[in-house]
């Protein structure tokens, strides 16, 4: 595809035909704020926070949805642009709880970021009616606080365009507009499968993972990229760790899954620190399990396996290894079975 060349803040940049002004700006490293824009989703250009000035245009231009043209001259930080952005932020904050002190998304919220960036202290300039929706927390996975929703519609598009379920959409009109499942029920009463992919794209605190956002401030979290332990799809995600505990799972850009996860991948990590976890070797004595040291347990296992092998031959032993464990562990258990015990009696539940 041919390239088009335009000028942004006085600097020339070439991008493939079909790129947006926002794409071109990002290529140059020029910052433009966005709320409703997402590279994987359709572009309604509805939030208007990404407006810029383009020479020859009477109105401000929505950079995320306007295709860059050859010779275009764009300015991203003119007084008119800044005024528009500030007004949008003031309008949004005028109908926002402004409870950043206790919000789980504090430190990871676009509304907060841009308010800071553009120096908007509150929405009092347009003070008026505010929403007082009840908090929706009747499911075990995430909380919906529609008072914090800025109607960017990313959750709607995620559900429709990536998850393919079309569970939520805009309902009502004007000030009463809200995102809701059919018949304005809670998600728990809808066809929602709780993949939480909407939560992954929410730019504010309107959608928050229940456990994650109530157990750690965003800046306390260390993220470790890994691969899901459930089905064979091999989704990647980030384990969110605080003080040596996994407190949540968030999307990364996985090779297979992008940011999409299912309900198990995103919300099925609680077993890691469950009190039922085995924390010590156990040896059965008189029908009861008794805690043992590793030395005792390993010694007993090695001794018993060795004596059965010596008494009855290696084929009297069998090993079941695990489709749940790592390649390295399966390899080593195979090596133990074949090279140390001396049998090919090794299998796992591939058939189940």
């Amino acid at each position, binding site marked *: 595809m041919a390239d088009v060349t335009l000028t942004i803040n006085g600097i020339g940049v070439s991008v493939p035909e079909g790129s947006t002004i926002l794409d071109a700006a990002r290529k140059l490293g020029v910052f433009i704020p966005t709320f409703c824009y997402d590279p994987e989703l359709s572009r309604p250009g509805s939030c208007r926070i990404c407006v810029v000035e383009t020479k020859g245009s009477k109105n401000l231009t929505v950079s995320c949805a306007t295709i860059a043209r050859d010779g275009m001259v764009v300015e991203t930080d003119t007084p008119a642009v800044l005024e528009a952005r500030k007004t949008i932020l003031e309008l949004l904050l005028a109908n926002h709880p402004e409870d950043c002190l206790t919000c789980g998304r504090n430190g990871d919220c676009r509304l907060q970021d841009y308010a800071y960036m553009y120096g908007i202290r509150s929405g009092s300039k347009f003070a008026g009616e505010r929403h007082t929706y009840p908090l929706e927390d009747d499911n*075990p996975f995430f909380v919906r606080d529609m008072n914090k929703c800025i109607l960017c519609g990313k959750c709607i598009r995620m559900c429709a365009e990536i*998850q*393919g379920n079309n569970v939520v959409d805009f309902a009502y009109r004007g000030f009463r507009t809200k995102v809701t499942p059919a018949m304005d029920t809670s998600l728990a009463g809808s066809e929602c*499968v709780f993949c939480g992919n909407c939560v992954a794209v929410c730019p504010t605190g309107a959608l928050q993972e229940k456990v994650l956002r109530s157990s750690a401030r965003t800046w306390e979290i260390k993220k*470790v990229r*890994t*691969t899901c*332990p459930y*089905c*064979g*799809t*091999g989704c990647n995600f980030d384990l969110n*760790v605080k003080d040596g505990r996994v407190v949540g799972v968030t999307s990364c850009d996985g*090779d*297979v899954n992008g940011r*999409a996860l*299912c*309900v198990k991948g995103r*919300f099925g*990590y609680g077993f*890691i*620190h469950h009190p039922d976890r*085995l*924390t*010590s*070797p*156990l040896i*059965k004595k008189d029908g009861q*399990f008794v805690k043992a040291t*590793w030395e005792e*347990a390993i010694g*007993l*296992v090695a001794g*018993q*396996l060795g004596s*059965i092998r010596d008494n009855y031959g290696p*084929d009297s*032993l*069998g090993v079941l*290894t*695990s*489709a*749940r464990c*790592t*390649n*390295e*562990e*399966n*390899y*080593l258990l*195979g*090596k*133990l079975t*074949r090279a140390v015990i001396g049998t*090919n*009696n090794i299998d*796992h*539940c*591939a*058939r189940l």
Partner: protein
Amino acid sequence: MTNPIGDIAGAEFILAIGTNTTESHPIIGLQVKKAVRQGSILVVADPRKTEVADLAKSHLQIKSGSDIALLNGMANVIISEDLYNKEFVAERTEDFEALKSVAAKYTPEYTEGITGVPAAAIREVAREYAKAENATILYTMGITQHICGTHNVFAVANLAMLCGQIGKPHSGVNPLRGQNNVQGACDMGALPNVFTGYQPVISDEVRARFESNWGCKQLPAKPGLTVGELLEGADKGTVKGMYIMGENPVLSDPDADHAAHSLKKLEFLVVQDIFLTETARLADVVLPGASFAEKDGTFSNTERRVQRVRKAVEPVGNARPDWRIICDVACAMGYAMQYDSPADIMKEIASVTPSYAGISYERLESGGIQWPCPTAGHPGTPVLHVGKFSRGPGKFHPVEYVPPAETPDEHYPLVLSTGRRRAHYHTGTMTMRTGALEVYYSKEHLEINSADAAKLGVKEGDMVKVTSRRGSVELMARLTEIVPEGMVFTSFHFPEVAINKLTNPARDSIAKIPELKVCSVKVEKIA
């Protein structure tokens, strides 16, 4: 899978047979939904009217266990209407005549008699598959967990080769594997007949190489026993001791009471797991392993992509990473098995496994790699069988339909099939302990067709007893049209509904996979 997951959305035609994709593989389901949104033809063959069947252009509601007939019926249409890919068949395959003669019998009308799928639908779907620019077949345990599981897979492969729908993008034969590292476990030789990379134990040359690499005198040449055979050996007394890591056969194996009974007969059982599972309770020694979040390693997914698992937290209590435990046991048995890290183990795996030879932790830092990856500079292989099959020409293995081992009769008039629920996983060891999933989906139920329920006087929410020749369980009935008349369905996730007490351990003679998808049961209302 012969093709990558990302390929599916681009297929012009998708046949999903024996896969409840959106429920069991939700993220692969997204690809299927995307394909449908983009205008691809989706055909679902499944006895149940699953969510993915609802999305399909055609839902072929086949009788349980009649897959071979359906696939042969499609082959029959494709051959008799001259729609097969003659160039591909001539250049890339052998024994076409054998397929042709077996398929001849499976006219659409004959096939309708076995499968219950209308002849016209079989014709239409066969034509669509053959004529599509690219067509993919997805399947899971609905194909494999039958006494003819291997033959079912042959029938799938025959169809793909017949139409040349393999060895190119957006096509292929694509089993969606159900466990995070079931592909990797197989790749690593966790099977009784092969070393890593499917190198056969019966090969003198292969054994000699492993003997020299592993520093041991004589590796056994005789293939070992499969899981079902090991349990039978335990029952008969020929298997005296077992080492079970991260498996729960007491709940996952068919005829579960028999599995527990067999394990109890062992002289010595060691179980290594993260929870005291139903199987671990029977052990003499229990070794606490580490969860995926507590160790480094790799998993290989269903599309053969080797990906990193990274340690995020320390193992709980005194638990240890499983690879360290195995090394400790080996050392205590007098074999020096020592590694600094899983990265070291991967180096050794790469050195003995041609298909993993180019894989290293350094490379995996920048993303997963799909094997075969024979050298450090090789990009990996997203699509298999391009230009050539590994054995040379692709061989048609024509197969005949056989009925399931157990078919309904007057005493056990219903077919029981088992599978998964989206919110749960396998025997529930993990998903029942998350603080969320088990709250959301807390109770299992039996799907029963409203017409059958009416005959039995069963109403929505009634407790029922489901009994097979091997055992019974009690659970709540849910009246639904998801299952057809004559069939009931539930999952194997809930220990209190241990459905594998009922399932049939009759196995496929080649792959030894049990027929978990079909057994005969009766349902009674509990007063």
